[in-house]
């Protein structure tokens, strides 16, 4: 999973993660994310990992860095978290 997301972000935003640009960099503060790119990223994650973003979960700082995006997707894909309560 890790490399797919990383590759996508590098390709979409023409950046490279390395020591000078670590994976926990805030992509907004670094000026990497624009509106079109952000929506494309969300669509990519939904399609690739088979879930839908909900409005209410987007008001937290969930997709601000590559590491946070990974964490979010991991939780989304975890049945314990995503299964509806009985």
């Amino acid at each position, binding site marked *: 999973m890790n490399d797919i997301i990383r590759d996508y972000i590098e390709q979409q935003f023409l950046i490279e993660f390395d020591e000078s640009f670590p994976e926990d960099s805030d992509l*907004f503060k670094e000026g990497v994310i624009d509106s079109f790119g952000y929506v494309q*990223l969300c*669509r990519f994650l939904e399609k690739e990992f088979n879930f839908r973003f*909900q409005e209410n979960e*987007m008001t937290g700082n969930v997709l601000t860095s590559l590491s946070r995006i990974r964490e979010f997707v991991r939780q989304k894909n975890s049945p314990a978290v995503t299964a509806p309560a009985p």
Partner: protein
Amino acid sequence: MCGIAGFFHPTLASEAYPATLLAMLRAIAHRGPDATGYVLDEHCGLGSTRLSIIDIAAGVQPLADPSGRYWLCYNGEIYNYLELRTELEGLGRSFLTHSDTEVLLQAWLHWGPACLSRFNGGFAFALYDRLQDELILARDRYGKRPLFYAPQGRGCLFASEMKAFLPFPGFRFEHDPAQLASILGVWTPLPAQTGYAGIHSLPMGHWLKLKAERIELFRYDTLDFQGTTTVASAEEAQELIRQRLRASVALRLRSDVEVGVYLSGGIDSAIVARLAQEASSRPLSTFSVEFADRQYDESTEQQEMASFLGSRHHALRITHQDIVDHFPAAAWHAEIPAFRSAFVPMYLLSRQTRAAGIKVVLSGEGADEAFLGYDIFKETLLRRDWQSLGDEPRRARLASLYPHLEHYGPQDLAAITGLYQQFAEERLPGLFSHELRFQNGRFSARLIKEAGDPLQAIAALVAAEPGYAALGAVHKAQWLEFRTLLAGYLLSTQGERMSLAHGVENRCPFLDPAVVELASSINLRFDDGFAEKWQLRQAFREDLPASIVNKRKFPYRAPDSAAFVDCRPDYLELLLSADEVAKIPFLDGKFVRALSKKIMTTPAAEISTKENQTFIFLLGIALQHRFFVQRSGLPQLPEVVSPLGRAIDLRAR
């Protein structure tokens, strides 16, 4: 309309004065094909190329006062010159001609720099005082007409377009990477920027005094959006809008030649055309750009408006090939890199306009800035109130934004919500309204190696602007629009630089101080701002087709990178060849390669706005570097000969 050029205490042998000044004027002859004139003395040379519009016979420049002490070269129009003339005559001033040039000169002599805020129009001028050995340069309040200056030794060069500096002996163009990074970050130059080291733009609303090696810059106008008109109701607001626009259009129809109208398909130019038709005894000529590429085309609305008016309509259909074929010539005229290709069709439209025998046109620029027509104003209101809004109003307001952008559609509401959440608090002091836009700019600024912070210059500009910090979020957004996108692109690169490339003068009735003041008195008082330009549209509801009145704002754009990928012109080598890119030392070769590769190999629908913008910027920088810095590969342009009508040499024999 004209072009002006000259020098003050130049680093030049005296015998070279006439030929140098004529060569400088020849470089901008397209601005004024009707006549060239100049005056010289030991210290100064100034001249103009003139497009004759008012008092065609007597308006020859340069113009002196009867004593011969003051000499004036002037570019533009002061629309209220008849009223000023009457006032000056009442104060004892007498006139020898009927031209507005003489009114300007007498106004300066009578009121001094206080005359500038009395002028309603677009102008730039150079005034030389022989007795004091002093040169004055001044420019209108909204930046309608250009004026560039380059300090040189003890003096300076000045001109309406920078290309006039090319023939000055020893003058060299060099790009300034820090300024270019700022232009890329903000999308346009800041008021004093040109992108070239050592060349300044005289900021709008300023004048400048050169004397004995000293350059002093003075401001005479400030944008504060403090409306002073008392308006009690929406109905009264609409009546006042009709009155002031009618008066503004009537002033801008003052001309000894026929005036046409550019119809975009939107409401602003439709209002201008309707009012022009009402005020004119002649049938109206209208001009429009159509696009073969449907996503940019507004020909349905343009044709509907033209048939509603019964105008003689001239439509110019633009293909990808047209954009690609004429991009180099348009970039030569523009001189400064642009973020869109949409100026190229305007270059071709002015050619067609001139061929139809029209040399003055009215257009709708300024309405969106004055009456809050752009989505960025709604975006600012929404982000300002983001944390306090409930889910439902937030959703409704998001849904009203950027209808032409597919990724703002309902299917991506969750994603857009997440994006706006990140932009609900101010990160860049004073620039809150434009922070999302500047994200695209930061991407473009990566073209420049070691660019530093591309937004540092604009942050410093607003921090130094008197009164700016006290403005509200929407007024700050308006200020930024007036000072960057409007002056730095719409009026200049897309506006007068393209129209004057073919000797056509463009006039903007919405940019009348009385109209802008009224808009400030009305905006957000009788509506919430989310139905853009609501009062303006209501004001003309009865006078225009309903489809035009109710149409959503559709930004004027043209095919961008897709056109170049389709047509693959030879000059793409400037970006695709490593050797060519290496000739421009400040470009980040690795980023240029990555971007160019992506553009050339990715389906157009997957190319983002920021990538398109960056590509067009890059193409402009590469071509302008070639034309101005390397002085090679100049585009083939028709030669314009502006006959010499006046040559005055005051130097001691």
